[in-house]
């Protein structure tokens, strides 16, 4: 298994990352749909009311103002201040520096992926992880402009790497009451968030 090197306070640990899927722990359920003859049906896209496009028939394309197609690799990353940012290396590119993680940051993180860490080497951070401490790092599975936040933690038996983005929390005062009345903008935003695969 491909391994990454994690360093903290002069000690390092080489470990592989195996993605943790809920289905691998508990199993899963899926809805199968059949027509009146008992044939299995799949979801497809219908365009102009007559063209059936099976799954995999639609691609995303980026284009510039002149209508020319643009490769994703030609794009550059820009932060919120408008400054161009450099690509962040993959976690496999070299030793990854760990720092002590804050529990409140971990709790504010929107989780994207969870990995079980696997290694034949002795884990030099085992004692502190087992005591409930968290170790934090910047994480990119592949090189990219934006790195995720990640925390290493233990359940006492295994070590996990939980990745995502730590949210900037909004603290509400008495005068910041949320309007219970629906606005058109809210409804549109909700529509955009709908995942049609659920149907």
């Amino acid at each position, binding site marked *: 298994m491909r391994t990454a090197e994690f360093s903290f306070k002069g000690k390092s640990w080489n470990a592989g990352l195996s993605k*943790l899927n*809920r289905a691998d*722990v*508990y*199993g899963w*359920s*899926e*809805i*199968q*749909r*059949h027509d009146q003859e008992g*044939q299995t*049906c*799949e979801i*497809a*896209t219908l*365009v102009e*009311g007559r063209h*059936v*496009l*099976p799954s995999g*028939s*639609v691609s*995303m394309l*980026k*284009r*510039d103002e002149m209508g020319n197609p*643009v490769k994703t690799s*030609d*794009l*550059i*990353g*820009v*932060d*919120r201040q408008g400054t161009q940012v450099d690509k962040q290396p993959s976690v496999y590119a070299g030793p990854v520096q760990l720092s002590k993680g804050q*529990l*409140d940051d*971990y*709790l*504010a993180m929107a*989780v994207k992926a969870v990995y*079980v860490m696997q290694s034949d080497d002795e884990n030099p951070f085992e004692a502190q992880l087992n005591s*409930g401490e968290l170790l934090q790092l910047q994480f990119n599975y592949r090189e990219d402009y*934006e790195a995720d936040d990640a925390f290493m933690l233990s*359940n*006492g038996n*295994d070590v*996990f790497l*939980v990745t995502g983005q*730590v*949210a900037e*929390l*909004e*603290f*509400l005062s*008495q005068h910041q*009451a*949320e309007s*219970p009345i629906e606005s058109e903008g809210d409804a549109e935003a909700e529509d955009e968030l709908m995942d049609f695969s659920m*149907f």
Partner: protein
Amino acid sequence: MARFIHFIDDQKRDAQVTFSSLNPKAKVRMFLPDGSAPETLRVIKGSATTAVAHLCDALIGPLESPDGTAELVREIELAEHIIKSDPEVDLELHGKFITDADRVYVNPQMRPVFRLKEEEHIFSAKRELVEKRTPRVVLSNIAESDMVKWSGKMLPKRAIVQKVLLTKKYQVKHINGLTFSFLFDLAKQLDEKEALMPVGAGEKGNQPLVMSDGGKPYRAFLEGRVRGDSYCLILHLTDQELKAPQKDEA
């Protein structure tokens, strides 16, 4: 759309408040080197009539014996057709941008089907089919006549994060002065004790929460933070323990 959640505390006081997803916005956006933003479009690259199975049937004939070899021979023969006459390209359709589309179910003949029979298949962690059943209708149980009960239990944050994965998060928000006090007081208690409080639905408040109709059931915890006269109350949802899959016995 404002979404509501109906809480009842351990003193039987209840209030409807709102909540929203706690999803951070991207810190980095992608631009062209000249500083302009690219436009993203959906483009057609294939259709039912140019799919491999349809082309095989149309150009070579139906599959007579369903073994893998016969299928492979058909596909090799199709490759020759593709090299000679480009039947996989529909000049009218391919490359067209999609601005409006519908989702439909289709049968293996790629015909839309409108009367479907649904069956739920349950698989074990070992990928074995363990049950087939009629899909259950799961309705939201967090608002209107349903209530989400505060358990009153204060569980240490650190102990919880070592046991479960808190995968979904919502921020709970007041809608007026009274609900501000209701939520602020709870957030303050949780903040002072550095604790998470389990909350649940149902008569006894021990049922998982279903946030929307057709959604999944989740166990839930409330976390509170206070900064001066303001608060942040987070509803954490989980449907997964922090544990690795069982290793197959050799």
